[in-house]
């Protein structure tokens, strides 16, 4: 009896695995071919935001911490990279690393303060702290105020790949994106990720099993910040500037919207969410609809009737379940 159920279960997860692998390969192929059909800068922007949203989701979806201050890491890293590449003339790959390190450091400081509280307090605290960082960037010398750091050279990757060529830039961005996603995937499905999950489930119990919950949360926070920084650093090279919009609280709101739209707690949901938001913003820019109203209304609709997001709804749908996906939150 148990044997049969087990085989069925194994069978099911095997189909699920192959289906998922299939999707993955198709997705990658699409991304590889995309620049032949779409405008590369648009695609790069999309990838940057997708990575940003996935990094954010790492925290929200897998540790249950809603940060309302992730713009700090995204925008902070953008500034660090833009500044070091433009002013110190460091090569792009090093610039990105500096951006990531900076974001991680910011994450450490903000996390250290914010993880003292949970739930919505946590959200409010991160919001307040990131607002503080916004004012810092506004007033600091090196960010060049509301002009932003402009005309950042993309430079040559490893000294020989010219990133000014938008095709090579695209594939560079794609490579970083894939690496970022792999990191997130590994991270979620790791022993550490397991502990995070259990903390989200029952924090007191985790403490009583001897886990210093605060440290695990902080670890997750820093990793999420670093990955968000990776996205921001990349974006500053793609667009060749870093400005205040990247650190403003509206940006933190946007990344939440992306994640919510795509599906909180799903690995690839935020990619779809980011795609949708970026497309929408571009579309709305040339339409008659006022952007803020639409954004606001989309938010409301999502929360009310679409909480699982696109990918979450798909997973939970009949087809999704047939294909062996699980959505649980």
């Amino acid at each position, binding site marked *: 009896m148990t044997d049969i159920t087990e085989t069925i279960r194994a069978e099911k997860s095997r189909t699920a695995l192959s289906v998922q692998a299939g999707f993955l390969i198709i997705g990658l192929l699409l991304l590889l071919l995309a620049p032949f059909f779409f405008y590369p800068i648009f695609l790069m922007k999309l990838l940057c935001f997708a990575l940003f949203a996935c990094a954010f989701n790492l925290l929200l979806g897998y540790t249950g911490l*809603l940060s309302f201050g992730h713009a700090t890491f995204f925008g902070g890293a953008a500034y660090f990279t833009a500044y070091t590449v433009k002013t110190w003339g460091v090569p792009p790959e090093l610039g990105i690393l500096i951006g990531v390190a900076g974001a991680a450091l910011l994450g450490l400081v903000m996390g250290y*303060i*914010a993880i*003292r*509280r949970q*739930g*919505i*307090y946590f*959200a*409010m*605290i991160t*919001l*307040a*702290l990131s*607002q*503080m960082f916004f*004012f*810092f960037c506004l*007033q600091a010398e090196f960010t060049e105020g509301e002009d932003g750091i402009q005309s950042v050279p993309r430079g040559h990757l490893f000294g020989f790949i010219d990133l000014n060529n938008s095709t090579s830039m695209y594939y560079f961005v794609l490579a970083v994106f894939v690496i970022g996603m792999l990191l997130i995937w590994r991270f979620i499905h790791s022993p550490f990720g397991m502990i995070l999950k259990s903390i989200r489930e029952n924090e007191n119990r985790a403490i009583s099993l001897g886990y210093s919950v605060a440290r695990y949360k902080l670890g997750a926070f820093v990793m999420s910040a670093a990955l968000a920084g990776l996205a921001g650093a990349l974006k500053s090279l793609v667009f060749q500037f870093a400005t205040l919009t990247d650190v403003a*609280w509206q940006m933190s*709101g946007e990344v*939440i919207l992306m994640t*919510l739209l795509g599906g909180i707690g799903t690995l690839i949901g935020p990619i779809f969410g980011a795609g949708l938001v970026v497309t929408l913003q571009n579309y709305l820019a040339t339409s008659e609809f*006022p*952007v*803020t*109203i*639409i*954004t*606001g*209304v*989309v*938010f*409301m609709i*999502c*929360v*009310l009737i679409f*909480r699982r997001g696109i990918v979450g709804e798909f997973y939970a749908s009949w087809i999704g379940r047939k294909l062996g996906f699980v959505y649980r939150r």
Partner: protein
Amino acid sequence: MTMIFGIPVQALLGQLLIGLINGSFYALLSLGLAIIFGLLRIINFAHGAQYMLGAFVAYLMLAYGGIGYWPALILAPLAVGLFGAVVERLFLRRLYGLDPLYGLLFTFGMALAIEGTFRYLYGSSGQPYATPSALAGGTNLGFMFLPIYRGWVVVMSLVVCIGTWLLIEKTKLGAYLRAATENAVLVQVFGVNVPVLLTLTYALGAGLAAFAGVLAAPVYQVSPLMGSNIIIVVFAVVVVGGMGSIMGAIVTGYVLGVAEGLTKVFYPEASNIVIFVIMAIVLLVRPAGLFGRDA
């Protein structure tokens, strides 16, 4: 002239008073937030938008209906409260029992939508609203020129804050409200119409925000952006106070208003972040906030 840290005592007194005025708005707003959070477990991100709505309703009443400040002081909060009631009935109700972050996100979207609508209709440079003639002008207090209207703001906010506190802590209605937050179903089983209570609560919170908005209209430019500028600061105020007590929200509002006012004198560059800095320090020393109960 006596000096403190190089600042004349008189100027200092003036700045203290001004801080108190600012604090009046913080107190009113954080009070409303605390009530809504306390009872509905929703962080009302739309609180700033409702504050803005209050000011705008007052402006619209004047511009299109010839209704002046005094009636507006009552009518605008009622109107916004009614709007809040409708929102609660139609939408927020569906979010009870879910992770509170959904409430936060919903109201965030709502704030964007409301603000966007008003920006779309009225632009962002704001609308004029004059001080009511009965409160125009000012008195010379010796150490400063105090516009009478500002004094009025302090008095009104104190009255409303204390009144609300009494309502919640000392009345049977308040007891129902508090109980309903913990276990709405049970309170309902006991024979209390909880859904109506919750609607009233949200309406009350929204009405308080709108009241602050009407008070602000003659002082600040009536603009669609006025809410989003202040809401984040009010969040910080609430964190510093701790969500445990209504009184905490009120007191912290005033105290931080004064703290900010003093910073404007001694180190004006930092005056926009001083509340955030205080927040960080308080969190490190007392994670539950100054008046918070849950550690």
